[in-house]
C-alpha cells in the first residue's frame, strides 16, 4: 500500500495540474497582422499600446509588421489585390485602397462614436459612392506647412516675413538669408504632389471642372508650377530635390533641414517629432502658417489612417482591436506621445496635452493645429478624391522633367492632362 500511495498521489496531482494549467492553453489565440510605417516614434507607441491590449485580451495577438513608407505605397496594394494582405494597415492613400477596406459597422459596439469623431475623414476611406462604411480611423491628421530655421534668419540679419505674407515674399527672404549665410537650400519643398498642392491651392487652383471631373491644369495650377519652375531657375530652390530623381519618386529635405542646410522647408506636421528629437538645441526652428497667394493661405490636409481590410479572416477580432485603439483615452495617449495633430474631432475640440514635447515642438503643434482650422474646401476635396494620387504623381513626374530642363512647362501641362486621363481610364477598365 505504501508503495501505491505516492503513485496515486502523483497521478492525482498531475490530473489537477492538467485541469488548472491546461484550461487556458486550450483557448484558441487569434493572430492578427498589422502593417505599419513610421515617420517618428509612432511605431514604438503603437507597439506599446498593442502589448497592453494583448495583456487585457489574451486571446488576440497582434503582430506589428513595421515596414518602410515605400512598402506601404508599393507592396501593400499588390498584397491586397492578391488577397494576401494584412488584417489592418496604416496607409496614406486611403482613397486608392478603399476598395479593399472592411466596413466594420456590423462588428462595432457603437458605430455612432466613429461617425461623430471621425466623420469627415471616413469619407477619405470609403469607396466612391459609399456614404456609410466605417473602414478605420485616422492615426493622425497632417497639415502641410513650412518649418523655418530661425537661427539662420538671425545670423543673416534678415527679418522673417510676417503672418499672411505671400510665397513670393518668403522666397525673396529665404534667398537673401541663404546668400548671406551660404547655405545650399533657400527653400526646400518636398518632391511630393501633396506638398505642391499646398502651393497650388494658395495660388487658386480648382482641380475639378464643373462636371466634377479633374481639370488639373488651370490658371491657379499654372501660377504654382511657374513659381516652382522660376524658383529653380533663380536658385531659390535647389535642383537636388525636384531635379535629382525621376518619375514619381518622393524626395524630402528633412535630412538637409536637420543639418541646417535649408532656410525654409515646406513639409508638414508629421516631421515635428523627428525634428524635436534630432535637432535638439542645435538651432532654433519654428513652424509657420502656410504662406498666401491669390487663392488664400490654405495648407493641404492629409494623414494616415489605420484601415481594416475585408480579406481578414477575423473581422470581429479586428473590430475589437480597432475599437480599443480608436477609443478616446488610448487615441489621446497615442497622439500625445507621438506628437501628432489629432484626427479625432472630440479630442481636437478638447485639446491634446503634449507633456513630452520640447518648447519648439509644442509651438509647432499649436501652429499646425491652428492651420488645420483654415484649410480650404478645395484642399479637402483633393485629399478625399479617390484618384488623387494619380493627379499628385503625374504632377511631380512631369514638373520634375520641366525643372530638370528636359521639357518645357507647356509640354508638362499637356502630359499631366494626358497622364491623368489615361490612368483614370485604365483604373476604370473592368
Amino acid at each position, binding site marked *: 500500500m505504501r508503495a501505491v500511495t505516492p503513485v496515486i498521489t502523483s497521478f492525482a496531482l498531475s490530473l489537477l495540474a492538467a485541469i488548472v494549467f491546461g484550461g487556458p492553453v486550450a483557448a484558441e489565440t487569434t493572430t492578427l497582422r498589422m502593417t505599419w510605417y513610421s515617420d517618428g516614434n509612432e511605431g514604438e507607441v503603437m507597439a506599446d499600446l498593442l502589448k497592453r491590449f494583448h495583456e487585457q485580451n489574451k486571446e488576440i495577438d497582434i503582430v506589428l509588421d513595421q515596414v518602410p513608407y515605400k512598402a506601404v505605397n508599393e507592396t501593400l496594394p499588390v498584397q491586397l489585390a492578391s488577397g494576401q494582405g494584412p488584417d489592418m494597415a496604416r496607409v496614406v492613400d486611403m482613397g486608392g485602397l478603399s476598395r479593399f477596406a472592411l466596413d466594420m459597422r456590423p462588428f462595432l459596439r457603437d458605430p455612432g462614436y466613429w461617425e461623430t469623431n471621425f466623420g469627415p475623414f471616413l469619407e477619405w476611406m470609403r469607396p466612391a459612392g459609399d456614404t456609410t462604411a466605417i473602414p478605420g480611423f485616422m492615426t493622425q491628421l497632417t497639415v502641410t506647412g513650412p518649418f523655418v530655421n530661425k537661427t539662420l534668419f538671425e545670423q543673416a540679419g534678415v527679418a522673417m516675413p510676417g503672418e499672411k505674407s505671400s510665397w513670393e515674399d518668403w522666397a525673396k527672404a529665404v534667398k537673401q538669408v541663404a546668400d548671406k549665410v551660404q547655405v545650399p537650400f533657400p527653400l526646400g519643398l518636398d518632391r511630393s504632389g501633396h506638398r505642391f498642392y499646398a502651393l497650388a491651392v494658395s495660388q487658386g487652383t480648382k482641380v475639378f471642372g464643373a462636371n466634377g471631373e479633374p481639370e488639373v491644369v488651370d490658371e491657379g495650377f499654372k501660377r504654382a508650377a511657374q513659381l516652382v519652375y522660376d524658383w529653380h531657375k533663380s536658385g531659390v530652390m535647389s535642383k*537636388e530635390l525636384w531635379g535629382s530623381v*525621376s518619375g514619381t519618386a518622393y524626395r524630402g529635405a528633412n535630412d538637409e533641414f536637420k543639418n541646417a542646410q535649408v532656410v525654409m522647408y515646406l513639409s508638414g506636421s508629421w516631421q515635428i517629432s523627428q525634428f524635436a528629437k534630432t535637432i535638439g538645441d542645435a538651432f532654433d526652428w519654428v513652424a509657420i502658417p502656410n504662406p498666401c497667394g491669390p487663392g488664400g493661405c490654405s495648407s493641404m490636409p492629409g494623414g494616415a489612417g489605420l484601415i481594416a481590410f475585408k480579406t481578414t479572416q477575423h473581422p470581429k477580432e479586428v473590430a475589437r482591436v480597432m475599437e480599443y485603439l480608436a477609443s478616446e483615452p488610448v487615441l489621446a495617449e497615442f497622439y500625445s506621445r507621438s506628437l501628432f495633430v489629432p484626427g479625432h474631432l472630440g479630442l481636437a475640440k478638447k485639446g491634446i496635452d503634449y507633456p513630452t514635447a520640447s518648447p519648439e515642438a509644442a509651438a509647432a503643434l499649436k501652429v499646425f493645429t491652428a492651420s488645420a482650422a483654415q484649410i480650404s474646401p478645395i484642399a479637402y476635396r483633393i485629399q478625399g478624391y479617390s484618384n488623387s494620387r*494619380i493627379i499628385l*504623381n503625374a504632377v511631380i513626374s512631369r514638373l520634375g*522633367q520641366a525643372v530638370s530642363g528636359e521639357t518645357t512647362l507647356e*509640354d508638362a501641362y499637356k502630359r499631366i492632362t494626358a497622364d491623368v486621363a489615361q*490612368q483614370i481610364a485604365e483604373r476604370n477598365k473592368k
Partner: protein
Amino acid sequence: MRGMQRLIGVRRMAYMFLLPNFVFFGLFVFLPIGINVVFSVTGGTALFPSQRPYVGGEQFAYLFDCGSYLDPASCREDHFWRGVANTAKFIVFQVTAMVLFSLVTALILNMKIRGRGFFRAVYFFPVLLSPVVVALIWKWILQRDGLLNAAITTLGGQKILFFVDPGWAMFWAVFVSVWAHMGFYTLILLAGLQAIPADLYEAAEMDATPRWRVLTYITLPLLWPNMIVVIVLALIKGAQTFDEVFVLTGGGPGTATLMIVQYIYETAFSSQVQNFGLAAAASVVLGAVLFVLTLLQFAAARRKEV
C-alpha cells in the same frame, strides 16, 4: 533505378533525370512568362488574369504610338522611349568601356608582374558585392557632401552636383557599372589569354616581332571568341540594368538615367494605377530584344567551340 531503366529504356531514363528541373523551370520561368504575355494583352488594374478584360494589342499600340521613334518626346508613352533611348546610350558607352578596360586589365594581369594574384583579386572583388551596396558606396562618394566633393573643395575647386547634371549622372552610371562588373569580364578574357599556346609567342620572340604586331596578329585574333562572349554578355547585362542605376540616380535628373527596366518596375508597381498590362507589354518587348541577344551569344559560343 535499374528496374526502371529496364522498364523504360536507357534513353528515356535521361528524360526522367531532366524532369525535376524541367518542372522547376516550367513553374518558375515559363509559367511566369506565359502569365506576363497574358497580362500584356489585358487591361485594368486587377491582379488575377481571369478578372482582367482582354484588350488585344492595345498596350503595344499605346507603347508604339510615336511621331518618330528617334524622338521620345513625340511618343504618347514618352517615358518608355526615354527608357529605351537611355538604355541604348548606356549600352553603347558601358559595353565599349567595359570591353576596353577588361581587355587592358586582362593583358596586364596576364603578364608576369609582381603581386599578380593580389591584383587579380582586387579587380574581381567588386563582382562579389551586391549592386545595391555598390550604388550606395558610390552615392556616398558622389553626393554633395561626399568624398569626391570634399577632395575637390580641398584642392580649391567648387562642389559639383553630379546627380543634378544629366551628363554627369549618365557618366557615373556607366562608370559605376564598369567598376562593379569589370572583374568578371577580365576573368573571362584572362582565361582566354591563358589558353593561347605559349609556343606562338616564343616563335614571335625568336622572329623579333614587335609587341604591337604580336598583339594584333596573335593575341587579339585568338582572343576573339572570348571577346564575342564578353561583348554579348555585357550587352545583355546592359539591357537589364536597373538596381545600380536606380539606387544611384533614381533615374534622374528628369529622366536622364531612366532605364527600360526601371520604367517597367515603376509602371507596374510604383505608379498609382499599377498598370500591369502596360508594364507586361514593355517586358515582352524587352524580352524579345534579350532573346535576340541570347541567340547571338549561343551563336558566338558555338563558333568558339568550332
